């Protein structure tokens, strides 16, 4: 499943590609919404691991504009629910992720990203 929580943890790892290699850009996505159990403690606990700007950018790329550009200071329940939805309920089933630096394309098929590189691209 490529959800935005996972996308936020993926960087391009092609040979020589070490800067501006995150976040990968989505294109040609097919989305599905699948409900997930809301666990506010998890969202609160995970938040420090999230790169906020990358999450906002990625969510806009796939058509969700609900997140504010700045991470709010106050983590109220409404905000945590919204974040839960964006991180865990939007699934990218098909599409691709492109490195902003070297333009390597990582395809997503049936919800699984293929992050493998060809032999000559491996660091």
């Amino acid at each position, binding site marked *: *499943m490529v*959800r935005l*929580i*996972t996308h*936020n*943890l*993926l*960087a*391009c*790892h092609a040979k020589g590609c070490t800067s501006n*290699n*995150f976040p990968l850009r989505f294109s040609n996505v097919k989305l599905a919404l699948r409900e*997930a*159990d*809301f*666990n506010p*403690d*998890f969202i609160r*606990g*995970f938040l420090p*691991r999230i*790169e906020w700007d990358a999450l906002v950018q990625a969510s806009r790329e796939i058509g969700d504009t609900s997140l504010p550009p700045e991470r709010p200071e106050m983590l109220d329940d409404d905000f945590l629910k919204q974040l839960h939805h964006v991180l865990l309920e939007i699934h990218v089933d098909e599409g691709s992720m492109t490195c902003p630096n070297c333009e390597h394309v*990582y395809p997503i098929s*049936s*919800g*699984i*990203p*293929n*992050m*493998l*590189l060809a032999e000559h691209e*491996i*660091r």
Partner: protein
Amino acid sequence: MIPTPDLSHLSKGDYEYVYEPAEDTFVLLDALEEEADSIRSLVPRICLEIGSGTGIVSSFLGHIIGVSNALFLCTDINPHAATCSARTGSQNKAPLEPLIASLVSPLASRLAHAVDILVFNPPYRAGIAGSWAGGADGMQVVAALLEQVDGLLSPRGRFYLVAVKQNNIPKLREFMLKPFCYRGRTKIVLQRRAGREYLFVLRFVRRVVNV
């Protein structure tokens, strides 16, 4: 008791491409179950299994920790395995995040010192189509990962590794003791003879928390 994950959705055809759970898998499940309370007490948020195969181990871990309490990432270099992991996760209501990847490459930079539970049952038996070639004794792939473990584990993180006797357990532990933070914090959680094999589950703790 945590039930063994249901694999009834997988068939003989799947096991032509994906490692079928065997003694080494079950010794790992038993070790994780033994560790359940101490794993839960860490309140893990990020779990990562390398070489997840059928996905049985991550699904089990999901039920130890609580499926909505953490993110369960799994990598496998074998696309069939990634698909099986996803299916096993849904079959067992334990959402997994499978990625087709070699070890941890695409995650390494973002998961620097972020992984709370890292699990690896290396492919010591080579020969499954599309699986890792483990080298003569599977140690090449283990060595490649061990180099990265310290950079991945969170301050309270721990690493569970399945080993076989041929791996030379004292040498493995010695290797992990090199980074100062593991000094005195490696432990054999479980050992068991299985036919001609002698299996171990080792635990490496980055910092002692409620041990």
